[in-house]
Structure formats: C-alpha cells, structure tokens
C-alpha cells in the first residue's frame, strides 16, 4: 500500500478548513452556546495550601434556597481519573493545595452567584507541614535509565563539567479559558466544552458518576480557543463539576472560567531542577552524562510520571554518549497539580543539556557549533535506552541550513565584540507520539465513512485547537482516495460519533493518527475497488474504512527496565536566537530567531510553519518574560497584566524552514511537529544572553531583576 509522490494534496498549503467560520466569528466556542433555562456554575475553592476543613458557613443576605449547592458527597465516586486515582473532584475534608475545589454553586443570576461565592466562609485547621519546593515533599515517581559504566567513563574524562539548571512554571494562556456546558437526559450526560482529549473527559465523567455504559456519556469538543496541553487533563475536573451541578439542578449548567480563576487553578508546566555532570575529552569528545532531573509534580499525580519520563528520555540531547545515567524524580508539593504543557518535560531537560553544551564549549575554548557537531547522533548510534537509531538524523544538514538562514558566522563575528549583544543556539530532538508502549495501550482507532452524496467523513477523536487537524486529515484521506479534498469532511469530535483515536497530545496527531487515517483510506479504497463512492453507498449503505494502531515492526519497549525504543521516530531541529540586553534595565530583547526542523514530510507547509512559529514564541516567552509568581505554591500573578506573554512588540521576527526526512510509519512520512518548537528557544535564548553578558546563566525565565547585581 503506497501512494507515491508527486502528491496532489500532501505538501500543499491547503487552506484551513474551518478558516471561514473563524474569520467571520461564526465558529462556536463553548461560551457561545445559548442554552435556554441554563444555570451558571461556580466553584468555591480552598484558600490554604494544606489542612482540614472544619466548617463551611453560608453568610447572610443571600437567598441560599435558590442555589444549587453540590459537595463531594453528591458524587458517586469522588475522583478525577487519569493515570492514578488520587485526585478528588471535590475536597471532602483534607485540602492539599490552594484553590482546590470544595463546593459548587449554581444559580441563574451570574451576578448574584458572585456575591454568593463571597458570602461563603470556610474555616480550616491549617497544616503547617505543606511542601512548596522540589524535594521537600514525598517522591511521586522515579525513573532510571542507565547505559555503560558511568563512573569508569567519568574517570577517563579530561574535563568534567557540573551545573544545576532550573526552569520555572509556565502558564498556557490559551486565549479562551476553560469551560463546559452540560445537561442530563435521564441517565445520560451530555457535555460540550473546550478541551483537547474527548475520551479523557469521557472516562473521567463515566467513572465519577459510576455509569455503566459508555453511551451514557457524550462528550463534544466545541471549537477550542487554544490548549497547548492545558486542556489535556484539567478539563476533566471542569466537566465533572458541570455534570454534577446539572444533575442536582435538573437543568443545564454552564461553567465558564474567568481568566483569573483559570490562571490560578489550572495546570502549569512543571518547574524543574536538573543537576548535570558531563565528562568529555579535552578536544571535545563527549563521553559521560550524569543527569539528575527533578520536577515539581504538585499535590496530585495527574500526568507527572509521563512528563518525568519524557523529560529524562530527552535529557541526553541529540548526542552520542559512551555512558549515561539519567535519573528522574517527581516530587509532590502542595501546589495545584502541574500538568501537560507542550513539550511535556522535554523542554525542561533539553534546556539543561543545551545550556550546558554551550557553557562547556566555552570552557573548552571551542566553537559551540563545532563542539555539538563532533558529538551528534548518527544512523545506528545507540541512545541511553539502548535504542539504535534506524534513520539518519541528518543533524549536519539541519545545522548547516540553520546557520545559513541566520548568516550565523558573519552575524556572530559582527556582534561578538559588542557588549550586551549575543547569539545562541540549541540543537534538539523530540520523540513522536506516546512514550514507550503508550501507543500500544492506547490502541487508537479511526474510521472513514462513505456518504450518499459521494463524500467521505473522517471520524477521529483528534481535536482541532488551531494546529490544523481538520485540514490535514482530509488532505491525507483525499490523497489516498483520489478525491477532491473538499469532498472529505471532518466530523466534529464527539464521543458518540467518533472512535477513540487517542488524545490530541504528544505530537501524535499528524504522524500517528494521520497514519491511521492513511491506512483507513486504503481500507476504504480496497472496499470501493474503483466504484464511485455515491454508487457504492447507494448499494451497500454507509461503508467504513477503518484502521487500528499497530506498532511499527521491531519497535519494542520494556516498561520495567525502561529500555528499548521509547519512540518510533524523532523530529530534530536547530534554533538560533539573537538578543540585545538593555544596559540600563538588563531587560533582554530577542531581536531575531531562526529555526530549522526535520518533522518528516511536511503535510501542509503554511499550517506547519504557523504552528512552529507559535511554539517558538511560547518558548521565547518561557525563557524571557513568563514568570509564574508563586505564593504558598499557587500562582498569584493571575492576570494578563501581570503574567506577561509576548505581544507583537516583544515577539521577534521568526524565520522557519524544514528539511524533510520522512518516517516510514508516520502519516505520509510525517513525524511529530506540535511540541518540538517548544524545545529549542529556552536554551538558545539563554545561550545568547550568556554571551551578551559574558557569563554563563543557568535559569529561565531570565529575569532582569536577577541580572542586575551591580
């Protein structure tokens, strides 16, 4: 089965499928739902980080009998199921973090609801043993990857470099806050909301309400105004709350978060601390890596183990090591749980290794480009998990193209003597799809269905949240089926209508699910056997082309020993950042930014570049201005005025290009694209600022307050 180039649609910048609705304001987001007889829902949250609820009092002046009030007791199973079952949907007695949901209110008057929320007083017996720093609390999860004799190899090194690298939390700042609307029809719950993983919400709601049948829960994804991982796990809680109030009210309920609530309560990127010890020869040959990678998991497990896992799996960078030991530890604290955020641990560990590579090059008196080049992974090289690289990473070609785009050598030479100016780079990789045996467990499915009008529907649970799912899947299906791309329709993800193709995360949509769409199209094509769709449909009724995930041959992972092929494919890239430091304020400005990536086949260049550019801007924000200020573990700068993301005046010109090195088992040769843009900017910017200031730095965000120490 293969469709060979030249392609009709693959590689073409087919216009965004839902573009017209988006530019006319016709797209319906969750808050645009108009539901008659609907109540507004509101969450009452803890004001302490740890302790026991002693009393809840309902103040005077509020007509409480008009309110729907729900607590943990109203929920058949008080749990938000994800990996573990440790997180309650509502606090019963013991509070584990600030802003933890305790009770829910609903009323038809949104204004009165606000007054009611203020009239509730919760008394606590505070527990002063709360932990807020990495390492203070208990260990949630630990992983170890070991290859070669680490201490023996260190003993053979001429140079040993040690440093501790830190990264801060990061808030997603999707411009549309979280929200759900929901109603019950008998024993069936209907929920529509802003989220990226319909089946995660489905599972969580089904479990919390103890429902027996999958069909009792219908989760629809409304047009989603950005997610970036922030709507992977958190929406399950919002959905359960909405459903609970709706059940108690016997009426539809809407829970639309306002910005401050969303920022205070929702998940963030895990703060990290990476202790690196790197050994090399004096001429710059890397030998040994000792990486101790720690993250703050927050008060509940949520996705921390898998974030941790991806972190250490990327912690060795795109380099060949004789011996490597990577230890990952996720610690519990009394912060609101940290969760998924684009890159999922990899940006944190890659930040450490890529910052260290430039600092070490400086120490060795070597050029940071040549030092990296000398150690790049090549075809057949073995990663610390024992995985031998089947494909050629083509790192030299990627780096050459990046340097050329940035006119790196001339630029670096020109700015080197100028104080407060710098140029920095980073080289990185990102594994496509779920880690290890994750894809096997997911067992994703997709379907293509014929229609009487001769068109085909794509039925997947992969969501559109700006990245282009709705456009690229029709491209893939149309390419195989020989249809006009406009004759392939994308069905709005809704659990009653689409099979479970897994969550829209982990850079898996285009490559992993896209491959399933490709295979399903071949399946359908085989059934049609040349008959026009309308004719076939008239004779046979709705006909499905289907596909279910199968691991590529030879891909093996051992969960126990943490060895094998963590990912079937890796995307690769180089970033170059040029910065200027204001000599008065020490404020860093990224002046220009370049990126070259191998994401395999580029299915839709405009969409792919757009996604990459946006990820770069987020990465630059994480490196420079995005500072989550924590107080007792919780974010206090919960406004867009004080949590600073780049405006048009901050984001630099971003130049992006690709080198296409197709992956045999990805949709039309594609590899992961969504997350890799987040991996490079942190270290590239830090390295540029380090050059500008003539001293190595080790922490992002780079805060002017910390640089000004005269």
């Amino acid at each position, binding site marked *: 089965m293969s469709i060979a180039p030249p392609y009709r649609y693959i590689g073409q*910048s087919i*216009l*965004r499928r*839902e*573009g*017209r*609705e*988006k*530019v*006319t*304001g*016709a*797209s*319906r*987001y969750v*808050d*645009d739902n*108009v539901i008659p007889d609907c109540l507004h829902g509101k969450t009452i949250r803890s004001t302490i980080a740890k302790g026991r609820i002693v009393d809840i009092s309902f103040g005077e002046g509020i007509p409480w009998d008009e309110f729907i009030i729900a607590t943990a007791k109203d929920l058949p199973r008080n749990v938000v199921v994800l990996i573990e079952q440790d997180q309650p949907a509502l606090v019963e007695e013991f509070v584990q973090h600030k802003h933890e949901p305790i009770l829910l209110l609903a009323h038809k008057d949104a204004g009165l609801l606000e007054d009611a929320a203020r009239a509730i007083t919760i008394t606590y017996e505070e527990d002063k043993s709360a932990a807020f720093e990495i390492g203070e609390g208990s260990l949630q999860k630990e992983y170890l990857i070991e290859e070669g004799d680490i201490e023996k190899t260190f003993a053979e090194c001429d140079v040993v470099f040690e440093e501790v690298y830190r990264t801060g939390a990061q808030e*997603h*700042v*999707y*411009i*549309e*806050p979280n929200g759900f609307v929901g109603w019950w029809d008998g024993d069936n719950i209907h929920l529509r909301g802003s989220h990226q993983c319909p089946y995660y919400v489905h599972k969580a709601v089904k479990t919390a309400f103890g429902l027996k049948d999958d069909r009792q829960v219908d989760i629809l994804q409304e*047009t*989603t*105004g*950005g*997610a*970036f991982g922030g709507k992977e796990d958190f929406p399950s809680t919002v959905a359960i709350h909405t459903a609970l109030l709706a059940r108690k009210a016997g009426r539809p309920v809407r829970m639309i978060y*306002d*910005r401050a609530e969303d920022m205070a309560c929702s998940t963030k990127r895990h703060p990290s601390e990476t202790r690196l010890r790197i050994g090399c020869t004096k001429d710059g040959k890397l030998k040994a890596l000792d990486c101790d990678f720690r993250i703050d998991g927050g008060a509940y497990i949520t996705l921390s183990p898998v974030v941790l896992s991806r972190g250490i799996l990327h912690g060795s960078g795109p380099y060949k090591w004789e011996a490597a030991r990577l230890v990952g530890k996720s610690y519990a604290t009394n912060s609101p749980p940290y969760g998924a955020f684009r890159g999922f641990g990899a940006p944190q560990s890659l930040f450490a290794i890529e910052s260290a590579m430039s600092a070490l090059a400086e120490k060795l008196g070597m050029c940071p480009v040549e030092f990296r080049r000398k150690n790049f992974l090549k075809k057949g090289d073995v990663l610390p998990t024992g995985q031998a690289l089947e494909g050629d990473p083509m790192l030299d070609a990627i780096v050459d193209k990046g340097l050329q785009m940035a006119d790196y050598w001339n630029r670096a030479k020109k700015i080197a003597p100028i104080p407060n100016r710098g140029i920095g780079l980073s080289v990185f990789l990102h594994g496509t799809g779920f880690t290890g045996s994750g894809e096997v467990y997911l067992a994703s499915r997709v379907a293509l269905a014929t229609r009487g009008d001769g068109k085909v529907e794509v039925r997947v649970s992969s969501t559109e*949240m*700006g*990245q*282009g799912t709705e456009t690229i899947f029709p491209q893939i299906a149309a390419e195989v089926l020989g249809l006009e791309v406009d004759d392939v329709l994308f069905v709005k993800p809704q659990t009653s209508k689409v099979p479970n193709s897994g969550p829209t995360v982990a850079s898996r949509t285009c490559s992993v699910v896209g491959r399933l769409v490709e295979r399903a199209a071949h399946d359908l094509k085989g059934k049609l056997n040349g008959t026009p769709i309308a004719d076939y449909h008239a004779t046979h009724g709705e006909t499905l082309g289907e596909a279910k995930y199968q691991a590529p041959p030879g891909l093996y992972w051992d969960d126990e020993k943490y060895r094998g092929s963590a990912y079937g494919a890796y995307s690769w890239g180089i970033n170059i950042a040029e910065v200027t430091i204001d000599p008065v304020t020490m404020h860093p400005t990224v002046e220009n930014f370049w990126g070259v990536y191998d994401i395999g086949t580029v299915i839709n260049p*405009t*969409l792919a*570049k*757009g*996604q990459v*550019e*946006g*990820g*770069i*801007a*987020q990465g630059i924000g994480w490196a420079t201005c995005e500072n989550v200020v924590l107080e007792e573990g919780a974010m206090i700068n919960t*406004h*867009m*005025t004080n949590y600073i*993301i780049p*405006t*048009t*005046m901050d*984001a630099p*010109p*971003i130049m992006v290009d690709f080198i296409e090195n197709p992956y045999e088992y990805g949709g039309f040769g594609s590899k992961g694209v969504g997350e890799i843009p987040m991996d490079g900017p942190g270290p590239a910017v830090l390295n540029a600022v380090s050059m500008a200031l003539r001293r190595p730095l080790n922490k992002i965000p780079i805060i002017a307050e910390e640089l000004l120490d005269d």
Partner: protein
Amino acid sequence: MTEPIRLKLNGKEVDLHSHPMTPLLHALRNEELSPGTKYGCGEGECGACTVLLNGDAVMSCMVPLCQAEGAEVETVEGLCIDGELHPLQEAFICEGGAQCGICTPGMLMSALYFLRQPEKAPGGVREALEGNLCRCTGYTRIYQSVERAIGEAAGK
C-alpha cells in the same frame, strides 16, 4: 428595570437591556448580538474583544454599556457583507493568520482600524496589533495577512 440602551451595531439599530455598567462585551454577547466578539481576560489586556466604537478600536470589556449609547459599534460580524468576505478575512484564511481563532475577531477589528487610520500606528502592522495577544501564531502569519490585505487594497 432601566431604559434600554440603543446603539447602532454593524449599521443596524439595536436596543440592549443589560445594566448600564455592564461591559459592552458582555452585553453584546449575553444579548446574542455579537457572539463573535470574544472574552479573553475582561481587563483590557488581550484584545480578543476589540470592536470599533465610532470608528475607534476599543476593548469592549472596558466600555460600560451606557457609554456606547447612540454610538456606532462595528464587530467581526459586520465584516462579511452578503456572504462576501472582507479582504482582511480572505487574507487571514490564505496566509494562515487564524489558528485556534479565538483572538481572530479582535485581531481583525484592530487590523481594520489600522487599514482605515494607519496614522494611529506609525510603526506599522506590528505596532497596530500591540493590543491583541495571540498565543498560537507567534504573530508572523498575522502580519503577513494584514500586509496582504493592505497590498490588495492598494491594488497590488
């Protein structure tokens, strides 16, 4: 309660019944007059709720409804006339200026303001859009979209 507040929305007279201190944004949304105008922060920072008020770009979350009485308000819904997209809308589709789309209506209204009154942002497109946050695009494709529309308006 109070008298309705009358204003002209996309050329049509409408009566709004919200409290006079209601942010224009919420009044327009709650009364189902402009679902395309989006909430993002409610504090004049993100620009998703940008509309034109008597021709000037404003954040509608910052305007108490009473202050819009008698005003001409233009929202994203007014851009497309009889099914024909505004050149800015065409350009946003062609150049990839919209991703998740939540900032797009506000972005378009700021861009429209720039097209009509470029002197207000002498630094160009980048400056004209400084009040509109986008978390998806990194802005590059939004500039390209606006520049394309400007080019088309100039007959290029």
